[in-house]
């Protein structure tokens, strides 16, 4: 008897003299099957995504900015951030051949500041969102899966965070905890989880009642197995699109907090550059070369994440109506 | 004197997936005071015909052919003339009345609007007339001040009927007016429509997927399938002795209790109606037809004469072999 996987034409005896072709590569374990399925659907998602022109533009810009951040040392020397560097030029000069974005009040190249400023912004965006999504997912699953009193309490908490205005809350937290990049990451992460929690909870509620989950439970599956093997994978695609948009918002939040002086004064981010520029009166002095590049960089990075997020949202989330 | 005369009507929607032909050549006539029933399953194109008659199709939709309303071609009217003709010569009783009424406007105002915009009265007199219309459909005039959500499904349907009568049109198009209602309410609304039609001598185009309803209310009926009319003729004879396999299947799907013909279990027909963009070659019904033969897949049947005032688009007709019951 042949093993169950190799069914089909191989039930028939091969005619004499002909080598039977080997059976196709069939995965044996359920986990391997699940991963094959996930790979196939990821391929499908990518194929659909490629057709979305705005999404591709966003993705392109994203790759560009990430490359700038990663390869910053190759693009502009880090010494350029040091005000005492001999590579600095005449302070507050408009763009020139040597300094394509002009210089700041220390004579540093604004180009260098902008290139290196990408790192903190992207780092904060990424990590703050990771924390936010992790908290949101855990809370959402607890609320949706376990229900009852914990759901009521957690949903109250979620509503509270949604109502309270973000910036005043972040300001109070950040000013007490002190000025550092880490604090900003934590503050943004700890205040922006509600949107994820809501989505996860709603999805947990629907998945919880699906037949295969009930079957698994009847077979004796425990909570951990159900959440990690059934609920999480189903929730994943839905929160992915939301996560990308959260990164965009996190970057904007970091910029604002840094601009208000709550960021690490020793880090060069787009927000701190703008804060320094404004603080030294660049606006009234008309020093546009100092003010435009960091701001434009923020706009384009945020747009990049937003366009990707919208494109993913269209593909991954069931739409009730076309807009 | 023909109130409505449709010739070779074709309606093609424009979608992201390409053009979709919903109506592929339909012709029909309705004389003054006559009721024509139009039956068919979902997606056969019935509602598209309703929208096309008063040019209510979405922008970008292609509508060709002729739609003569009291002699004038609706499809070539100027916008001003079209707006004037709408409701005054032909009005529509929409399906379900679920969202067909403005949720934030009182019933009386919605009724009066139809009267006022056609310059027939001012607001105050229009409201009086609205009260009379409600009375005609069996609703108390105090309902004028209600909002749609305060009415039941049947009451909302009556309001839609009252609204359709507001400008005394010569033709009423009833688009599945009983579909979303409970059976008891269905009967009430049907008998109301019947009464009004006789009283006022209205011409009516009654559209439904329930064939048995049509037999009660319409003198003639037409059966639609895949965007075309496949059978037409006097209601009773079409229902009792169908000349097209599809009509036979439709009639068998709605058994009448106590009727000897339905002693056996009602038979459903396998398969689904074709998607408008994937219509089979030849006779569009042949994949599901129990009487299909070789010519059916390649020849598109015309509407052959199949009896006294009857036509059927089935190749068995010119062969002289009407389907047996």
């Amino acid at each position, binding site marked *: 008897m042949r093993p169950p996987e190799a069914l089909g034409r191989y039930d028939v005896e091969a005619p004499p003299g002909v080598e039977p072709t080997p059976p196709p590569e069939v995965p044996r374990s359920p986990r391997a099957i699940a991963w094959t399925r996930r790979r196939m659907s990821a391929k499908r998602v990518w194929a659909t995504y490629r057709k979305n022109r705005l999404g591709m533009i966003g993705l392109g810009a994203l790759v560009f900015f990430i490359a700038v951040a990663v390869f910053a040392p190759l693009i502009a020397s880090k010494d350029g951030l040091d005000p005492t560097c001999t590579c600095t030029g005449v302070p507050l000069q408009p763009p020139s051949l040597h300094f394509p974005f002009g210089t700041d009040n220390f004579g540093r190249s604004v180009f260098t500041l902008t290139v290196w400023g990408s790192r903190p912004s992207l780092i904060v965006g990424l990590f703050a969102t990771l924390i936010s999504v992790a908290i949101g997912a855990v809370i959402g699953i607890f609320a949706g899966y376990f229900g009852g009193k914990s759901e009521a309490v957690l949903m*109250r908490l979620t*509503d509270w965070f949604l*109502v*309270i*205005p*973000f*910036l*005043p809350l972040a*300001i109070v*937290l950040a*000013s*007490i905890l002190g000025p550092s990049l880490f604090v900003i990451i934590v503050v943004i992460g700890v205040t922006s989880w509600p949107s994820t929690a809501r989505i996860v909870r709603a999805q947990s509620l629907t998945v919880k009642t699906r037949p295969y989950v009930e079957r698994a439970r009847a077979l004796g599956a425990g909570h951990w197995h159900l959440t990690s093997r059934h609920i999480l994978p189903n929730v994943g695609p839905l929160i992915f699109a939301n996560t990308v948009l959260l990164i*965009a918002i996190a970057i904007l939040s970091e*910029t*604002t907090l840094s*601009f*208000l*002086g709550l960021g690490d004064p020793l880090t060069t981010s787009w927000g701190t550059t*703008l804060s320094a*520029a*404004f603080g030294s009166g660049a*606006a*009234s*002095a*008309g020093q*546009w070369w100092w*003010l*435009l590049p960091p*701001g434009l960089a*923020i*706009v384009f990075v*945020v*747009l990049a994440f*937003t366009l990707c997020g919208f494109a993913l949202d269209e593909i991954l989330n069931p739409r009730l*109506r076309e*807009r | 004197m023909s109130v409505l005369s449709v010739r070779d009507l074709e309606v093609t929607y424009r979608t992201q997936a390409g053009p979709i032909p919903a109506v592929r050549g339909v012709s029909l006539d309705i004389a003054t005071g006559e009721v024509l029933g139009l039956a068919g399953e979902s997606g056969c194109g019935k509602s598209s015909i309703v929208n096309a008659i008063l040019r*209510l199709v979405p922008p970008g939709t292609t509508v060709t052919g002729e739609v003569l309303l009291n002699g004038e071609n609706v499809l070539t009217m100027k916008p001003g003339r079209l*707006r*004037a003709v*709408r*409701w*005054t010569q032909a009005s*529509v009783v*929409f399906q*379900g009345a*679920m*969202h*067909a*009424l*403005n*949720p*934030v*406007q009182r019933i009386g105002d919605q009724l009066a*609007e*139809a009267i006022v*915009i056609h310059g027939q009265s001012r607001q105050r007199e229009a409201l009086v007339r609205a009260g009379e219309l409600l009375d005609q459909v069996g609703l108390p005039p105090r309902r004028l001040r209600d*909002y749609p*959500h305060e009415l039941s499904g049947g009451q909302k349907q009556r309001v*839609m009927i009252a*609204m359709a009568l507001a400008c005394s049109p010569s033709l009423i198009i009833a688009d599945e007016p009983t579909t979303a209602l409970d059976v008891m309410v269905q009967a009430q609304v049907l008998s109301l429509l019947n009464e009004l039609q006789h009283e006022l001598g209205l011409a009516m185009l009654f559209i439904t997927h329930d064939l048995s309803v049509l037999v009660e209310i319409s003198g003639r009926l037409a059966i639609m399938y895949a965007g075309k009319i496949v059978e037409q003729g006097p209601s009773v004879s079409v229902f009792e002795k169908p000349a097209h396999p599809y009509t036979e299947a439709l009639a068998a799907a709605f058994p009448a209790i106590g009727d000897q013909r339905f002693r056996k279990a009602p038979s459903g027909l396998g398969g689904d109606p074709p998607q408008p963009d994937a219509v089979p070659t030849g006779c569009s019904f042949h994949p599901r037809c129990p009487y299909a033969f070789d010519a059916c897949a390649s020849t598109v049947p015309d509407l052959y004469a199949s009896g006294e005032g009857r036509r059927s688009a089935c190749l068995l007709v010119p062969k002289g072999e009407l389907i047996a019951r």
Partner: protein
Amino acid sequence: MRGYLIGKIAQAFLTLLFVLVFNFFLFRVMPGDPAAILLRGSAAFNPESLAAVREDLGLDQPLPEQFVTYLGDALTFNWGDSFFQSGQPVSEVISGTIWPTILLVGTATLASAAIGLLIGIYGGWKRGSRFDIGSLSFTLFVWAMPEFWFGILVLMAFSGGVGPFPAIFPSGGYETAASDLTGLSHVVDVLNHMVLPFFVLTVAYLGEYALIMRNSLLDVVGDDFIQTARAKGVREKQILWRHAVPNALLPTMTVVFLSIGFIFSGAITIEYVFSWPGLGWLTVQAIEHKDYPLLQALFLVFSVAVIVANLIADILYTYLDPRVRAA
């Protein structure tokens, strides 16, 4: 309906309570001496002040008692003394700066909502048109832009004067310094100073209003009663204004009020950029001086403003929607 309203008001109070609880525990759960945290980095970091603050906070009392005292203080506007305003009560400092914010945020919200809603209506009605696509792109771009950066650019252009832009507006403040204007000329002076921040705040948020209104209108346009109106022979313009917009406006109104919270937050940075002496500008001053009592009180005030706005939104919806009114 009355039950529904009472429920909403109760919820609002509950949220307010959360804010107070949050403020209460903020210093008490931080590692270390709350008094030390409070006075950290300030000139008053000495044993006497520390002891005074500790007594002020009632740290020697049991926690429940502390909380009750705190609640009582908070609700009677007894918010402690400001640090950098040399001991002036926080409530006084705040009440002295609240009017400019009300003036700026109030007018900007009205203008932003009015213009935004109109753009949303027109864009949604003529969906896919050049106007629609243009306004959507504009909305997206403005959303991605930090509003304070836009403010800085506007300040640079119209106050500093760069390139072709005329330097016709003052560089900040509420009124011309050391001036003695009264009556009409004072009003004009204030308005002159308000033009730029008002413009920036209005533009920064009208995109969001436009988007909300557009989506709401698109939802409504697909409904059957629009088709009924068209079949009746109603003109397109009347269909838009008499049938579509009233239905689309209902859910939009609630969201408009709910987004007031964001405008308040945006005002913080804008007031700072234009030195407009309101609550936002005060917040930034408090950050610079680590004036924690002031910061906490400001957080409370901002939260209350948003909670009240949300409550108004709920009440408004209840009265405007005939379906809810009857319930």
